[in-house]
Protein backbone atom coordinates (compact mmCIF):
# COMPACT_ATOMS: atom_id res chain seq x y z
CA UNK A 1 0.00 0.00 0.00
CA UNK A 2 1.50 3.37 -0.94
CA UNK A 3 1.67 6.22 1.53
CA UNK A 4 -0.96 8.20 -0.35
CA UNK A 5 -3.37 5.28 -0.41
CA UNK A 6 -2.71 4.67 3.21
CA UNK A 7 -3.46 8.26 4.13
CA UNK A 8 -6.66 8.23 2.14
CA UNK A 9 -7.72 4.95 3.61
CA UNK A 10 -7.10 6.18 7.10
CA UNK A 11 -9.28 9.29 7.20
CA UNK A 12 -12.60 7.65 6.41
CA UNK A 13 -12.12 4.63 8.67
CA UNK A 14 -11.33 6.92 11.59
CA UNK A 15 -14.71 8.57 11.20
CA UNK A 16 -16.45 5.25 10.68
CA UNK A 17 -14.70 3.76 13.71
CA UNK A 18 -15.69 6.77 15.82
CA UNK A 19 -19.38 6.22 14.98
CA UNK A 20 -19.10 2.82 16.63
CA UNK A 21 -16.98 4.03 19.55
CA UNK A 22 -19.53 6.65 20.48
CA UNK A 23 -22.10 3.92 21.03
CA UNK A 24 -20.00 2.46 23.85
CA UNK A 25 -20.86 4.36 27.02
CA UNK A 26 -18.38 4.90 29.81
CA UNK A 27 -18.74 2.15 32.38
CA UNK A 28 -20.07 -0.38 29.87
CA UNK A 29 -19.41 -4.10 30.25
CA UNK A 30 -17.56 -4.50 26.96
CA UNK A 31 -16.97 -7.96 25.49
CA UNK A 32 -13.85 -8.19 23.35
CA UNK A 33 -12.32 -10.96 21.27
CA UNK A 34 -8.88 -12.47 21.81
CA UNK A 35 -6.04 -11.15 19.68
CA UNK A 36 -6.22 -14.07 17.24
CA UNK A 37 -9.80 -13.38 16.24
CA UNK A 38 -11.41 -10.19 15.02
CA UNK A 39 -10.28 -7.36 17.26
CA UNK A 40 -11.72 -3.96 16.31
CA UNK A 41 -8.52 -2.03 17.03
CA UNK A 42 -9.57 1.04 15.04
CA UNK A 43 -12.65 1.39 17.25
CA UNK A 44 -10.54 0.81 20.35
CA UNK A 45 -8.33 3.67 19.20
CA UNK A 46 -11.36 5.96 19.03
CA UNK A 47 -12.37 4.88 22.53
CA UNK A 48 -8.95 5.93 23.77
CA UNK A 49 -9.10 9.22 21.87
CA UNK A 50 -12.40 10.11 23.50
CA UNK A 51 -11.20 9.05 26.18
CA UNK A 52 -13.61 6.38 27.46
CA UNK A 53 -13.62 5.83 31.22
CA UNK A 54 -14.60 3.07 33.62
CA UNK A 55 -14.97 0.32 31.00
CA UNK A 56 -15.40 -3.19 32.30
CA UNK A 57 -13.72 -5.51 29.84
CA UNK A 58 -14.81 -9.09 29.32
CA UNK A 59 -12.33 -11.33 27.51
CA UNK A 60 -14.00 -13.92 25.27
CA UNK A 61 -12.33 -15.82 26.66
CA UNK A 62 -8.97 -14.02 26.85
CA UNK A 63 -7.51 -10.67 25.95
CA UNK A 64 -4.40 -9.19 24.40
CA UNK A 65 -3.08 -6.00 22.93
CA UNK A 66 -6.37 -4.11 22.65
CA UNK A 67 -7.09 -4.61 26.34
CA UNK A 68 -3.57 -3.63 27.34
CA UNK A 69 -3.87 -0.42 25.34
CA UNK A 70 -7.22 0.43 26.93
CA UNK A 71 -5.89 -0.32 30.40
CA UNK A 72 -2.72 1.66 29.91
CA UNK A 73 -4.74 4.60 28.59
CA UNK A 74 -6.81 4.65 31.78
CA UNK A 75 -10.09 3.64 30.12
CA UNK A 76 -10.67 0.53 32.24
CA UNK A 77 -12.06 -0.05 35.72
CA UNK A 78 -12.45 -3.84 35.66
CA UNK A 79 -11.31 -6.84 33.67
CA UNK A 80 -12.87 -10.30 33.62
CA UNK A 81 -10.84 -12.74 31.58
CA UNK A 82 -9.24 -16.16 31.45
CA UNK A 83 -5.92 -14.55 30.53
CA UNK A 84 -4.44 -11.29 29.35
CA UNK A 85 -1.12 -11.33 27.54
CA UNK A 86 0.63 -10.53 24.30
CA UNK A 87 0.97 -14.22 23.47
CA UNK A 88 4.39 -14.98 22.03
CA UNK A 89 5.37 -11.39 22.75
CA UNK A 90 5.12 -11.92 26.46
CA UNK A 91 3.07 -10.61 29.32
CA UNK A 92 0.90 -7.49 29.06
CA UNK A 93 2.86 -4.63 30.65
CA UNK A 94 0.08 -2.07 31.18
CA UNK A 95 -2.19 -4.72 32.67
CA UNK A 96 0.50 -5.86 35.09
CA UNK A 97 1.27 -2.28 36.12
CA UNK A 98 -2.40 -1.57 36.76
CA UNK A 99 -2.73 -4.84 38.70
CA UNK A 100 0.24 -3.95 40.89
CA UNK A 101 -1.01 -0.41 41.42
CA UNK A 102 -4.47 -1.72 42.24
CA UNK A 103 -6.10 0.68 39.77
CA UNK A 104 -8.21 -2.04 38.14
CA UNK A 105 -10.38 -4.78 39.55
CA UNK A 106 -9.44 -8.17 38.11
CA UNK A 107 -11.98 -10.96 38.00
CA UNK A 108 -9.85 -13.97 37.17
CA UNK A 109 -11.75 -16.65 35.31
CA UNK A 110 -11.19 -19.64 33.04
CA UNK A 111 -12.11 -20.01 29.38
CA UNK A 112 -15.04 -22.44 29.71
CA UNK A 113 -16.56 -20.41 32.57
CA UNK A 114 -16.71 -17.37 30.33
CA UNK A 115 -18.18 -19.42 27.49
CA UNK A 116 -20.73 -20.87 29.91
CA UNK A 117 -21.68 -17.44 31.25
CA UNK A 118 -22.21 -16.09 27.75
CA UNK A 119 -24.20 -19.16 26.76
CA UNK A 120 -26.41 -18.65 29.81
CA UNK A 121 -27.12 -15.11 28.60
CA UNK A 122 -27.62 -16.39 25.06
CA UNK A 123 -30.25 -18.83 26.32
CA UNK A 124 -31.89 -16.41 28.71
CA UNK A 125 -31.15 -18.49 31.81
CA UNK A 126 -29.60 -17.16 35.01
CA UNK A 127 -26.71 -19.64 35.11
CA UNK A 128 -25.10 -22.60 33.40
CA UNK A 129 -23.51 -25.61 35.06
CA UNK A 130 -19.89 -26.30 34.21
CA UNK A 131 -18.15 -29.63 34.66
CA UNK A 132 -14.74 -29.87 36.28
CA UNK A 133 -12.94 -26.79 37.70
CA UNK A 134 -13.75 -27.79 41.30
CA UNK A 135 -10.60 -27.75 43.42
CA UNK A 136 -9.25 -24.70 41.63
CA UNK A 137 -8.76 -21.68 43.90
CA UNK A 138 -10.83 -19.73 41.38
CA UNK A 139 -13.91 -21.34 42.90
CA UNK A 140 -12.91 -20.11 46.37
CA UNK A 141 -12.37 -16.55 45.18
CA UNK A 142 -15.21 -16.10 42.72
CA UNK A 143 -17.94 -15.21 45.19
CA UNK A 144 -20.40 -14.84 42.31
CA UNK A 145 -20.05 -18.54 41.41
CA UNK A 146 -21.95 -21.28 43.23
CA UNK A 147 -21.33 -24.93 43.94
CA UNK A 148 -24.47 -27.03 44.47
CA UNK A 149 -25.16 -30.71 44.77
CA UNK A 150 -26.38 -31.84 41.37
CA UNK A 151 -30.19 -32.27 41.73
CA UNK A 152 -29.92 -35.36 39.50
CA UNK A 153 -28.45 -38.61 40.77
CA UNK A 154 -25.76 -39.33 41.86
CA UNK A 155 -25.85 -35.77 43.19
CA UNK A 156 -22.19 -34.82 43.00
CA UNK A 157 -21.10 -31.21 43.59
CA UNK A 158 -21.21 -29.11 40.44
CA UNK A 159 -20.18 -25.56 39.64
CA UNK A 160 -22.74 -23.01 38.44
CA UNK A 161 -21.58 -19.81 36.77
CA UNK A 162 -23.95 -16.87 36.39
CA UNK A 163 -24.99 -15.43 33.05
CA UNK A 164 -22.63 -12.89 31.52
CA UNK A 165 -24.63 -10.32 29.62
CA UNK A 166 -22.31 -7.72 28.08
CA UNK A 167 -23.65 -4.23 27.52
CA UNK A 168 -21.68 -4.14 24.29
CA UNK A 169 -19.97 -6.74 22.13
CA UNK A 170 -17.37 -5.22 19.80
CA UNK A 171 -15.47 -7.05 17.09
CA UNK A 172 -14.06 -6.83 13.58
CA UNK A 173 -14.86 -9.15 10.66
CA UNK A 174 -13.94 -9.54 7.02
CA UNK A 175 -17.37 -8.82 5.59
CA UNK A 176 -20.65 -7.22 6.49
CA UNK A 177 -23.64 -6.39 4.29
CA UNK A 178 -26.26 -3.67 4.13
CA UNK A 179 -28.63 -5.68 6.35
CA UNK A 180 -26.08 -5.73 9.16
CA UNK A 181 -25.24 -9.39 8.65
CA UNK A 182 -21.61 -10.15 9.54
CA UNK A 183 -19.55 -13.12 8.37
CA UNK A 184 -17.65 -14.62 11.32
CA UNK A 185 -16.75 -18.02 9.85
CA UNK A 186 -15.59 -20.57 12.42
CA UNK A 187 -15.19 -17.80 15.02
CA UNK A 188 -18.48 -18.73 16.57
CA UNK A 189 -17.47 -17.11 19.88
CA UNK A 190 -18.15 -13.81 18.11
CA UNK A 191 -21.66 -15.04 17.38
CA UNK A 192 -22.16 -16.09 20.98
CA UNK A 193 -20.92 -12.68 22.19
CA UNK A 194 -23.46 -10.96 19.95
CA UNK A 195 -26.30 -13.23 21.01
CA UNK A 196 -25.48 -12.55 24.65
CA UNK A 197 -24.90 -8.81 24.42
CA UNK A 198 -27.45 -6.01 24.56
CA UNK A 199 -25.64 -4.04 21.85
CA UNK A 200 -23.36 -5.44 19.18
CA UNK A 201 -21.00 -3.25 17.15
CA UNK A 202 -19.15 -4.69 14.17
CA UNK A 203 -16.40 -3.11 12.11
CA UNK A 204 -15.46 -4.81 8.87
CA UNK A 205 -12.86 -4.79 6.15
CA UNK A 206 -15.47 -4.49 3.44
CA UNK A 207 -19.18 -4.46 2.69
CA UNK A 208 -20.62 -7.19 0.52
CA UNK A 209 -23.05 -6.07 -2.17
CA UNK A 210 -24.94 -9.33 -1.77
CA UNK A 211 -26.93 -10.27 1.32
CA UNK A 212 -24.72 -12.75 3.18
CA UNK A 213 -27.72 -14.81 4.22
CA UNK A 214 -28.81 -15.29 0.62
CA UNK A 215 -26.00 -17.76 -0.05
CA UNK A 216 -26.29 -21.02 1.90
CA UNK A 217 -22.53 -21.45 2.17
CA UNK A 218 -21.91 -17.95 3.47
CA UNK A 219 -24.99 -18.03 5.68
CA UNK A 220 -23.48 -20.90 7.68
CA UNK A 221 -20.81 -18.55 9.02
CA UNK A 222 -22.91 -15.41 9.27
CA UNK A 223 -24.19 -13.58 12.33
CA UNK A 224 -27.65 -12.27 11.37
CA UNK A 225 -28.20 -8.52 11.40
CA UNK A 226 -30.97 -9.14 13.92
CA UNK A 227 -28.27 -9.03 16.60
CA UNK A 228 -26.18 -6.22 15.17
CA UNK A 229 -26.79 -2.68 16.41
CA UNK A 230 -24.40 -0.86 14.10
CA UNK A 231 -21.69 -1.61 11.57
CA UNK A 232 -18.90 0.38 9.98
CA UNK A 233 -16.56 -0.38 7.13
CA UNK A 234 -13.04 0.16 8.47
CA UNK A 235 -10.37 -1.22 6.14
CA UNK A 236 -7.40 -2.58 8.06
CA UNK A 237 -9.51 -2.04 11.18
CA UNK A 238 -8.06 -5.00 13.07
CA UNK A 239 -4.39 -4.03 12.63
CA UNK A 240 -1.95 -4.60 14.19
CA UNK A 241 -3.86 -7.79 15.10
CA UNK A 242 -4.64 -9.93 12.08
CA UNK A 243 -7.83 -10.38 10.11
CA UNK A 244 -8.50 -13.90 8.85
CA UNK A 245 -6.57 -14.61 5.71
CA UNK A 246 -6.61 -10.94 4.65
CA UNK A 247 -3.62 -9.88 6.71
CA UNK A 248 -1.59 -11.40 9.52
CA UNK A 249 -0.77 -9.97 12.90
CA UNK A 250 1.95 -7.35 12.59
CA UNK A 251 4.63 -8.91 14.76
CA UNK A 252 6.92 -5.91 14.39
CA UNK A 253 4.34 -3.67 16.06
CA UNK A 254 3.77 -6.23 18.79
CA UNK A 255 7.50 -6.48 19.46
CA UNK A 256 7.86 -2.71 19.55
CA UNK A 257 4.89 -2.41 21.86
CA UNK A 258 6.22 -5.07 24.22
CA UNK A 259 9.54 -3.27 24.38
CA UNK A 260 8.25 0.29 24.74
CA UNK A 261 5.35 -0.41 27.06
CA UNK A 262 7.68 -2.04 29.59
CA UNK A 263 7.77 1.39 31.24
CA UNK A 264 4.89 3.78 31.81
CA UNK A 265 6.72 6.50 29.92
CA UNK A 266 7.40 4.21 27.00
CA UNK A 267 3.75 3.19 26.92
CA UNK A 268 2.69 6.84 26.81
CA UNK A 269 5.00 7.54 23.89
CA UNK A 270 3.79 4.47 22.03
CA UNK A 271 0.19 5.46 22.65
CA UNK A 272 0.73 9.00 21.41
CA UNK A 273 2.27 7.64 18.24
CA UNK A 274 -0.56 5.15 17.75
CA UNK A 275 -3.23 7.79 18.25
CA UNK A 276 -1.43 10.04 15.77
CA UNK A 277 -1.36 7.38 13.07
CA UNK A 278 -0.01 4.04 12.02
CA UNK A 279 3.06 5.34 10.25
CA UNK A 280 4.61 6.68 13.39
CA UNK A 281 4.76 3.19 14.85
CA UNK A 282 7.42 2.33 12.34
CA UNK A 283 9.70 5.01 13.76
Amino acid at each position, binding site marked *: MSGAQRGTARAAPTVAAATLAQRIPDGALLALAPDYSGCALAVVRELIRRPARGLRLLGVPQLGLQADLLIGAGCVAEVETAALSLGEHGLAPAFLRAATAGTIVIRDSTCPAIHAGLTAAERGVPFLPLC*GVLGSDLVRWRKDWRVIDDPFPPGRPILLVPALRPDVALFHVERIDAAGNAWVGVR*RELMTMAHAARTTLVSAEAASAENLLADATLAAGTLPGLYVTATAVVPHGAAPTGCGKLYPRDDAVYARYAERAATAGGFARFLDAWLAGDDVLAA
Partner: protein
Amino acid sequence: MRGWPVTTFSRRELLITTIAGLLDGCGHVAVGAASPVPAAGALLARELGGGRPRVSLLGGLRDNPFTDGSRELFDCAAQGRVDAFFLGGAQIDGEGNVNLLGLGPYPALTRRFAGCFGAPFMATVVQRLILFREDHDPRCLVERVDFVTAAGGRPCHLLTGMALFRFDAGRFVLESLHPGASLDELRSRTGFAFAVTEPCTTTSLPSPGTLALLRGPVRAALAEVYPRAAATLGPS
Protein backbone atom coordinates in the same frame (compact mmCIF):
# COMPACT_ATOMS: atom_id res chain seq x y z
CA MET B 1 19.41 -33.71 7.96
CA ARG B 2 20.22 -37.16 6.58
CA GLY B 3 23.76 -36.73 7.73
CA TRP B 4 22.89 -36.59 11.45
CA PRO B 5 24.15 -39.53 13.45
CA VAL B 6 21.09 -41.37 14.67
CA THR B 7 22.73 -42.31 17.93
CA THR B 8 23.14 -38.65 18.89
CA PHE B 9 20.11 -36.67 19.93
CA SER B 10 19.25 -33.53 21.81
CA ARG B 11 17.58 -33.35 25.20
CA ARG B 12 14.57 -31.89 23.43
CA GLU B 13 14.39 -34.92 21.15
CA LEU B 14 14.48 -37.18 24.18
CA LEU B 15 11.60 -35.24 25.73
CA ILE B 16 9.58 -35.42 22.52
CA THR B 17 10.15 -39.14 22.29
CA THR B 18 9.16 -39.59 25.93
CA ILE B 19 5.96 -37.63 25.36
CA ALA B 20 5.12 -39.78 22.36
CA GLY B 21 5.48 -42.83 24.60
CA LEU B 22 3.09 -41.36 27.17
CA LEU B 23 0.48 -40.93 24.43
CA ASP B 24 0.51 -44.59 23.48
CA GLY B 25 -3.05 -45.82 22.96
CA CYS B 26 -4.64 -42.38 22.82
CA GLY B 27 -7.30 -41.69 20.20
CA HIS B 28 -7.18 -37.90 20.30
CA VAL B 29 -4.53 -35.60 21.71
CA ALA B 30 -5.06 -31.84 21.99
CA VAL B 31 -2.15 -29.46 22.43
CA GLY B 32 -2.59 -25.89 23.61
CA ALA B 33 -1.00 -22.81 22.10
CA ALA B 34 2.71 -22.09 22.60
CA SER B 35 3.57 -25.74 23.28
CA PRO B 36 6.07 -26.81 20.62
CA VAL B 37 7.55 -29.80 22.47
CA PRO B 38 4.19 -31.38 23.39
CA ALA B 39 3.04 -30.66 19.83
CA ALA B 40 6.07 -32.48 18.45
CA GLY B 41 5.47 -35.36 20.87
CA ALA B 42 1.86 -35.68 19.73
CA LEU B 43 2.86 -35.54 16.06
CA LEU B 44 5.52 -38.19 16.68
CA ALA B 45 2.96 -40.41 18.41
CA ARG B 46 0.76 -40.02 15.33
CA GLU B 47 3.61 -41.05 13.04
CA LEU B 48 4.47 -44.02 15.24
CA GLY B 49 0.79 -45.02 15.37
CA GLY B 50 0.25 -44.82 11.62
CA GLY B 51 -2.14 -41.88 11.85
CA ARG B 52 -3.48 -42.48 15.32
CA PRO B 53 -3.89 -40.58 17.66
CA ARG B 54 -5.69 -37.70 15.98
CA VAL B 55 -3.77 -34.54 16.91
CA SER B 56 -5.43 -31.15 17.41
CA LEU B 57 -2.96 -28.29 17.59
CA LEU B 58 -4.64 -25.17 18.89
CA GLY B 59 -3.45 -22.17 16.98
CA GLY B 60 -2.63 -24.39 14.04
CA LEU B 61 -4.61 -24.18 10.84
CA ARG B 62 -4.24 -27.64 9.35
CA ASP B 63 -4.35 -29.58 12.59
CA ASN B 64 -7.06 -27.52 14.26
CA PRO B 65 -10.34 -29.29 13.55
CA PHE B 66 -12.70 -27.07 15.49
CA THR B 67 -15.56 -25.20 13.83
CA ASP B 68 -17.81 -24.29 16.73
CA GLY B 69 -15.86 -21.45 18.26
CA SER B 70 -13.29 -21.39 21.00
CA ARG B 71 -15.56 -23.25 23.37
CA GLU B 72 -15.42 -26.40 21.27
CA LEU B 73 -12.10 -27.66 22.68
CA PHE B 74 -13.60 -27.55 26.16
CA ASP B 75 -16.87 -29.16 25.13
CA CYS B 76 -14.94 -31.79 23.24
CA ALA B 77 -12.85 -32.56 26.33
CA ALA B 78 -15.94 -32.63 28.54
CA GLN B 79 -17.50 -35.16 26.16
CA GLY B 80 -14.53 -37.43 26.82
CA ARG B 81 -13.19 -36.98 23.31
CA VAL B 82 -9.78 -35.60 24.35
CA ASP B 83 -7.63 -38.40 25.71
CA ALA B 84 -4.56 -36.37 26.55
CA PHE B 85 -3.71 -32.74 27.21
CA PHE B 86 -0.62 -30.88 28.41
CA LEU B 87 -0.17 -28.22 31.04
CA GLY B 88 2.89 -26.23 31.97
CA GLY B 89 2.85 -24.16 35.12
CA ALA B 90 4.71 -21.40 36.88
CA GLN B 91 4.53 -23.73 39.87
CA ILE B 92 3.78 -27.42 40.18
CA ASP B 93 3.56 -28.93 43.63
CA GLY B 94 3.88 -32.34 45.25
CA GLU B 95 0.10 -32.85 45.21
CA GLY B 96 0.01 -32.33 41.48
CA ASN B 97 -1.52 -28.85 41.73
CA VAL B 98 -0.63 -26.40 38.98
CA ASN B 99 -0.32 -22.62 39.29
CA LEU B 100 -0.39 -20.51 36.15
CA LEU B 101 -1.74 -17.32 37.67
CA GLY B 102 0.97 -15.72 39.78
CA LEU B 103 3.27 -15.78 42.80
CA GLY B 104 2.55 -14.63 46.32
CA PRO B 105 -0.73 -14.49 48.22
CA TYR B 106 -3.83 -13.99 46.03
CA PRO B 107 -5.29 -11.56 45.10
CA ALA B 108 -2.40 -9.19 45.88
CA LEU B 109 0.10 -11.27 43.96
CA THR B 110 3.75 -10.27 44.09
CA ARG B 111 4.06 -11.41 40.51
CA ARG B 112 1.23 -11.99 38.03
CA PHE B 113 1.35 -13.96 34.80
CA ALA B 114 -1.16 -14.13 31.93
CA GLY B 115 -3.98 -15.99 33.69
CA CYS B 116 -5.51 -19.41 34.21
CA PHE B 117 -6.63 -19.98 30.60
CA GLY B 118 -8.57 -23.26 30.38
CA ALA B 119 -6.32 -25.13 32.80
CA PRO B 120 -8.74 -25.40 35.75
CA PHE B 121 -11.17 -27.17 33.45
CA MET B 122 -8.89 -29.26 31.25
CA ALA B 123 -6.98 -30.66 34.22
CA THR B 124 -10.19 -32.05 35.65
CA VAL B 125 -11.80 -33.51 32.53
CA VAL B 126 -9.12 -35.06 30.29
CA GLN B 127 -8.22 -38.69 30.74
CA ARG B 128 -4.47 -38.35 30.55
CA LEU B 129 -2.99 -35.13 31.88
CA ILE B 130 0.70 -34.52 31.21
CA LEU B 131 2.48 -31.77 33.12
CA PHE B 132 5.47 -30.58 31.19
CA ARG B 133 8.32 -28.19 31.90
CA GLU B 134 11.44 -28.22 29.84
CA ASP B 135 13.58 -26.90 32.69
CA HIS B 136 13.70 -28.57 36.08
CA ASP B 137 13.71 -25.63 38.44
CA PRO B 138 13.26 -25.96 42.22
CA ARG B 139 11.54 -22.56 42.27
CA CYS B 140 8.94 -24.11 40.01
CA LEU B 141 8.66 -27.59 41.50
CA VAL B 142 7.48 -26.53 44.94
CA GLU B 143 6.00 -28.12 48.01
CA ARG B 144 2.81 -26.13 47.71
CA VAL B 145 1.68 -23.77 44.93
CA ASP B 146 0.74 -20.20 45.88
CA PHE B 147 -2.51 -20.43 43.92
CA VAL B 148 -4.23 -23.59 42.74
CA THR B 149 -5.08 -22.83 39.13
CA ALA B 150 -5.77 -26.48 38.37
CA ALA B 151 -6.34 -28.96 41.14
CA GLY B 152 -4.09 -31.99 41.40
CA GLY B 153 -4.84 -35.28 43.06
CA ARG B 154 -5.67 -37.12 39.84
CA PRO B 155 -3.32 -39.53 38.09
CA CYS B 156 -1.04 -37.72 35.70
CA HIS B 157 2.55 -37.58 34.49
CA LEU B 158 5.13 -34.88 35.08
CA LEU B 159 7.93 -34.62 32.57
CA THR B 160 10.84 -32.21 32.99
CA GLY B 161 14.24 -31.85 31.41
CA MET B 162 15.62 -34.07 34.15
CA ALA B 163 13.12 -36.83 34.85
CA LEU B 164 9.73 -38.42 34.32
CA PHE B 165 7.33 -38.85 37.26
CA ARG B 166 3.88 -40.32 37.57
CA PHE B 167 1.37 -39.05 40.12
CA ASP B 168 -0.23 -41.96 41.86
CA ALA B 169 -1.99 -42.47 45.19
CA GLY B 170 -1.40 -38.94 46.35
CA ARG B 171 2.28 -38.42 45.48
CA PHE B 172 4.73 -38.25 42.62
CA VAL B 173 6.75 -41.38 41.95
CA LEU B 174 9.96 -41.21 39.95
CA GLU B 175 9.46 -43.23 36.81
CA SER B 176 12.81 -42.62 35.14
CA LEU B 177 15.81 -40.31 35.16
CA HIS B 178 17.04 -38.86 31.91
CA PRO B 179 20.61 -39.76 30.94
CA GLY B 180 23.19 -37.63 32.71
CA ALA B 181 21.10 -36.80 35.78
CA SER B 182 21.64 -38.35 39.21
CA LEU B 183 19.03 -39.07 41.85
CA ASP B 184 20.82 -36.81 44.32
CA GLU B 185 20.84 -33.95 41.86
CA LEU B 186 17.17 -34.56 41.10
CA ARG B 187 16.30 -34.44 44.82
CA SER B 188 18.25 -31.22 45.33
CA ARG B 189 16.48 -29.56 42.42
CA THR B 190 12.96 -30.69 43.33
CA GLY B 191 11.06 -28.72 45.96
CA PHE B 192 8.60 -31.49 46.80
CA ALA B 193 9.19 -34.96 48.17
CA PHE B 194 8.68 -37.84 45.75
CA ALA B 195 8.83 -41.61 45.95
CA VAL B 196 11.49 -43.71 44.29
CA THR B 197 11.32 -47.38 43.40
CA GLU B 198 14.81 -48.85 43.35
CA PRO B 199 16.63 -49.50 41.18
CA CYS B 200 16.25 -46.19 39.47
CA THR B 201 15.63 -46.61 35.73
CA THR B 202 16.88 -44.44 32.92
CA THR B 203 14.45 -42.89 30.45
CA SER B 204 14.27 -44.89 27.23
CA LEU B 205 16.34 -43.40 24.47
CA PRO B 206 14.89 -42.72 21.05
CA SER B 207 15.56 -45.46 18.53
CA PRO B 208 17.13 -44.65 15.18
CA GLY B 209 13.75 -45.20 13.52
CA THR B 210 12.02 -42.84 15.91
CA LEU B 211 14.66 -40.17 15.36
CA ALA B 212 14.22 -40.52 11.62
CA LEU B 213 10.49 -39.93 11.94
CA LEU B 214 11.10 -37.03 14.27
CA ARG B 215 13.56 -35.36 11.95
CA GLY B 216 11.48 -36.12 8.86
CA PRO B 217 7.67 -35.96 8.83
CA VAL B 218 7.26 -34.67 12.42
CA ARG B 219 9.65 -31.81 11.82
CA ALA B 220 7.79 -30.91 8.62
CA ALA B 221 4.37 -30.96 10.30
CA LEU B 222 5.66 -29.03 13.30
CA ALA B 223 7.12 -26.33 11.08
CA GLU B 224 3.64 -25.29 9.96
CA VAL B 225 2.80 -24.08 13.46
CA TYR B 226 6.19 -23.77 15.16
CA PRO B 227 8.81 -22.98 12.53
CA ARG B 228 11.43 -21.92 15.07
CA ALA B 229 11.03 -25.00 17.25
CA ALA B 230 11.10 -27.25 14.20
CA ALA B 231 14.41 -25.75 13.16
CA THR B 232 15.99 -26.83 16.47
CA LEU B 233 15.26 -30.54 15.96
CA GLY B 234 18.39 -32.55 15.45
CA PRO B 235 21.32 -33.49 17.67
CA SER B 236 22.39 -30.76 20.03
